[in-house]
């Protein structure tokens, strides 16, 4: 079954909201983790990034968000080069990140975790209250547990808090790194449905995922990284139709994309 497509893909010349252009990232001076990686996040779409372990998927995302400084190449927001911009300035530009692993403040309450995300407008009480309400509305369990320490919740609940925290800020772009890693399958399915529904709410998505099946199912355009380089990229249609691409993916994951 071919995945359902919401759109025909990026119109030619449509400006990406977020872009990596020929980015190199190196550790300790000369060990190159990324070499000439490029990718573009098209507005209103879900862009997927897949690849085997160690391909540099998370590194690319960290470089995109200013957590790593590229040694070459550029990061662009709305076509404007912002390479080297500090991570905390991305929120003001409407770009939220839900990183891999835990990004909560374990000893603080659920509500304090949400309040800290409202730091840049903390003096505007009405706006803070509205942001909290948005998160609670999306995930009502957060409201029930608002006084609980974030670290005392289950892995799935913590992930909902991270998603709710990102959503509370009304971003136009959400970057997600392995959103369902270490999450029970039932909850994972719920999370993918949630992500799938984001473009309809006006939120562009960049999804880095080890889970090729789900990523290809909900993404519009997919980038494949391997050994820190772009391997191929294409629309999901191309992925499902191209025998070479299908066998490529079958090579590094035990998963076959049905034509």
């Amino acid at each position, binding site marked *: 079954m071919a995945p359902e497509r919401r759109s025909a893909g990026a119109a030619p010349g449509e400006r990406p909201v977020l872009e990596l252009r020929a980015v190199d990232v190196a550790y*300790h001076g000369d060990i190159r983790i990324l070499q000439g990686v490029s990718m573009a996040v098209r507005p209103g779409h879900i862009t997927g990034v897949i690849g085997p372990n160690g391909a540099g998927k998370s590194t690319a995302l960290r470089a995109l*968000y200013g*957590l790593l400084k590229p040694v070459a190449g550029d990061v662009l927001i709305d076509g404007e080069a912002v390479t080297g911009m*500090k*991570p*905390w*300035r*991305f*929120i*003001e530009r409407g770009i*939220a*990140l839900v*990183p891999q692993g*835990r*990004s*909560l*403040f*374990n*000893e*603080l309450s659920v509500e*304090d975790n949400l*309040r*800290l*995300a409202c*730091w*840049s407008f*903390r003096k505007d009480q009405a706006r803070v209250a509205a942001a909290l309400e948005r998160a609670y509305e999306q995930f009502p369990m957060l409201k029930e547990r608002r006084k609980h320490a974030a*670290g005392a919740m289950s892995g799935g609940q913590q992930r909902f808090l991270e998603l709710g*925290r990102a959503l509370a*800020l009304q971003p136009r772009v959400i970057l997600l790194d392995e959103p369902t890693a270490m999450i029970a399958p039932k909850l994972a399915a719920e999370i993918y449905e949630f992500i799938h529904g984001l473009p309809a709410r006006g939120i562009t998505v960049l999804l880095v995922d080890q889970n090729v099946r789900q990523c290809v199912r909900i993404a519009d355009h997919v980038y494949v990284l391997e050994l820190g380089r772009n391997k191929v990229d294409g629309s999901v249609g191309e992925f499902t139709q191209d025998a070479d691409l299908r066998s490529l993916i079958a090579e590094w994951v035990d998963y076959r994309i049905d034509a």
Partner: protein
Amino acid sequence: MESLVLNGLINGLIVGGVYALIGLSLTLLYGVLRIVNFAHGEFVIGGSFLAYVLFNSLGIPPLLALPVAAVSFFAAGWLAYYLLIPRLARSDDPEIMSFLMMYGMSIALAAVMLLMFEADSRSIDYAFKPISMKVGPIYVSTARIVAFGVTVVISAALAWFLYRTLPGKALRATIMNREAIQIVGVDVEKLSAFAFALATGIAGVTGVLIALVFPAFNAFSGAEYSIIGFIVVVLGGLGNPIGALIAGIIYGLAEQLATVFLPQALAQIVGFGILVGTILIRPTGILGWRAQR
């Protein structure tokens, strides 16, 4: 004997309060900035000398020196942060570089104080009226009681700030997860500058209190306070502010009671016994379970 023990307990609380403030500053610095501030003891003694100069040259009593020390040290800390710390980030191993740099600072500051005040021990010749107060069967100097009161107020204010206000929670959140605080949009450089300034400001105030609590201080007293501070930080659990406050009191009590029960030579190693014991038995510190994640 009973009054000796009571004496040990009261003095333990008083000096413990001073150690608690030193430990709290160091744990904040380490937690928020990952800086091992070996020069903290010299910052503290700098506060003692400030109180000394204010009293001897301008006749300003120690209690009025407290706000002067707080404000001037806070400002100096802010400046020092931007002068010193961002450069460290360019190094491959900022933690080791910070350790070496602060160790160098410690030696340099002690040398500057030696130059300015010479090697003699100093004390502030200021007497409260009455000079001492009766606590149960024993007399305690008023200066020490006043210093303890100030310590309690400052500790309570800091705990309230760190646990009840959003900027305080942001500082603790940075200790818990330094990357996450950046992705939720908090300018971690500004926050770090504030933490450094706050810790330096507390050091200045602690210095004034030391001039009230201890008989004398000199240019080389700093190193001892740094070491006690680190023992307190380890005992309280790295990056745990409440742990540091409690550990400071425990250390003070242990030190003072040791002088009551143990021979002089043994009493001096009690602190190091606590350090080694903590690392062997409970490496996460007394409140370390909170840090397990």
